[in-house]
């Protein structure tokens, strides 16, 4: 208690020096929490958007389906296994048929994927309702990125070409009935969504699908025969590893920030030991053991960390809370990095992130504060009283 009181008084006595150290440390604390919150927000927001628009609760893939092998796509279709058909029937899964094709927007050739989906499905958060339009023209739904790249808008007509199950090439005009805004590029870029039964008819693939997507709260069945079950975690693994790779880059910045703050604390401690040698000698003369004197100086340094956390909480909490509410407006560049984030990134500050940052900061501050005090162990009281470094 005596040590704490003396350390506290010494800190207050140091005035501006303490204030500056606390400011620098608290800025580091807030900056680290803010950027960790951004990463966590990026992780959660991307995963949520992917789950809602593409991944669902998991997927069942046709044995030949490989999203990274366009050449195998022509063969990747077949009747879904019975367990999947039951899920499709009760609305807890949606079948998707993928057929490679080409379309000719404004006279230009552009390869794309034709994806058939039930217009009434509720499994994925895609605006497939307008695909239920009647008429001879094929209704198609495209994403805003594809629309922008091809110069298409709602109501435009575009020629589609595809190869059916027998290898016969066919072509028809299609009308854009909806342009969707989605943060998920992989349901937008170079693809057009059609009514499932129309595509099955056009491609001569009745009752077939390439993959089956389970609803968000449903796990795809394991007993799917040759069809391969892909869990939600497997399907999100790439995105999560992308976020992790960003986290490594961010960690370098934290280390630099922390290093600069710790340099300030270390300097303060060294200066303090140099300027207060006579005080150290007095404390020893009054009967304070060397270890206790070293503990006093370490405690003073560590209290900088405690004050920084308090200061950081005072101005950082409202600042970060507002940041979490308003979010961070993203430029178009974020879209090209492959993150399904939309226009705004909303940081997420979990208790775990704040607690770990706080603990890390306090531990590092205490350790850095302790390092210079080791000199006290070899300091002679007589040297200290004379104001010598020993």
């Amino acid at each position, binding site marked *: 208690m*005596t040590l704490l009181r*003396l350390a506290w*008084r010494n800190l207050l006595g140091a005035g501006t020096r303490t204030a500056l150290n606390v400011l620098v440390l608290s800025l580091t604390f807030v900056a680290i929490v803010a950027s960790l919150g951004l990463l966590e927000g990026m992780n959660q927001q991307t995963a949520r958007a992917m789950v809602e628009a593409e991944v669902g609760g998991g997927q069942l893939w046709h044995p030949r389906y490989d999203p990274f092998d366009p050449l195998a796509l022509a063969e990747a279709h077949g009747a879904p296994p019975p367990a999947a058909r039951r899920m499709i029937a009760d609305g807890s899964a949606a079948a998707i048929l993928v057929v490679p094709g080409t379309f000719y927007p404004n006279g230009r050739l552009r390869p794309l994927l034709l994806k058939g989906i039930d217009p009434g499905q509720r499994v994925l958060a895609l605006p497939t309702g307008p695909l239920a339009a009647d008429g001879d023209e094929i209704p198609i739904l495209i994403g805003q990125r594809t629309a922008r790249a091809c110069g298409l808008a709602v109501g435009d007509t575009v020629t589609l070409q595809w190869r059916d199950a027998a290898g016969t090439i066919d072509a028809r005009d299609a009308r854009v009935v909806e342009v969707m805004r989605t943060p998920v590029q992989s349901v937008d870029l170079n693809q057009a969504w059609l009514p499932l039964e129309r595509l099955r008819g056009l491609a001569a693939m009745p009752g077939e699908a390439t993959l089956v997507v389970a609803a968000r709260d449903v796990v795809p069945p394991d007993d799917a025969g040759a069809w391969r079950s892909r869990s939600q975690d497997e399907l999100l693994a790439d995105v999560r590893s992308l976020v992790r790779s960003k986290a490594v880059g961010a960690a370098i910045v934290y280390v630099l920030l922390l290093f600069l703050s710790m340099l300030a604390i270390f300097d303060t401690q060294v200066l303090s030991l140099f300027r207060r040698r006579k005080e150290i000698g007095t404390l*020893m*003369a*009054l*009967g304070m053991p060397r270890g206790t004197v070293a503990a006093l100086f370490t405690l003073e340094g560590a209290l900088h960390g405690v004050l920084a956390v308090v200061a950081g909480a005072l101005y950082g909490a409202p600042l970060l809370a507002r940041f979490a509410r308003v979010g961070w407006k993203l430029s178009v560049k974020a879209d090209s990095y492959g993150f399904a984030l939309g226009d705004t990134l909303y940081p997420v500050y979990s208790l775990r992130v704040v607690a770990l940052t706080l603990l890390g900061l306090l531990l590092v501050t205490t350790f850095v504060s302790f390092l210079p005090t080791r000199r006290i162990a070899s300091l002679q009281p*007589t040297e200290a009283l004379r104001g010598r470094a020993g």
Partner: protein
Amino acid sequence: MTGDLLIETHELTKRYPMGASEIVALRQVTLRFDAGEFAGLVGPSGSGKTTLLNILGSLDVPSEGSATVLGERIETLTHRRAAELRNRHIGFIFQTFNLLPVYTVFENVEFPLLLLKVPAAERRRAVMDALERVGLADRARSRPAQLSGGQCQRVAISRAIVKRPSLVLADEPTANLDAENSHNVIQTMGRLNHELGTTFIFSTHDEKVIRYLRRTISLVDGAVARDERGAAA
């Protein structure tokens, strides 16, 4: 208690390395101090007064010979045991007062009792008693920076006596004070020596202090040149 053997040094020598050679600060000093003495180590600068005082206060150790303070052999004490000896039995008064600037007068005087883990009520009583003895009870809430040099030294005296030590070592206690304050400070210490029976040993070359001493030990080049007892002024 008064008259009992408190300190005994036997052929005490202290050497300090100085580059390739060494400086001999004390040469075979043999002395005895009894409880209740009001004694001074006098001599010019560099005569070894402070070195001897530091060894008697267990802040330093002899190079040769022995020093026994309150039954403890200084040369064999560990750092922790030496700190304990100072904490319990020895009070220090320094030339530059050495008060803790961030503490109030009361807290400065209270500090040795906190180290001794004395209960709060007893601490308060002891601190106020010590401050009253030096006439500074009304400045208990002041900070050292708000006091004059003489007042600071009287706070330092209070701090030295608050735990009722057997021995108070004062290193040039009046060197930073004017004549009037020197007079007040030395008179205060003399009164405390009389009232409490505490042994006071000074290092000084201040003539104003020397005339108050009941025993004067003159050091020249680290050796005892004279050891005189006589009535104080």
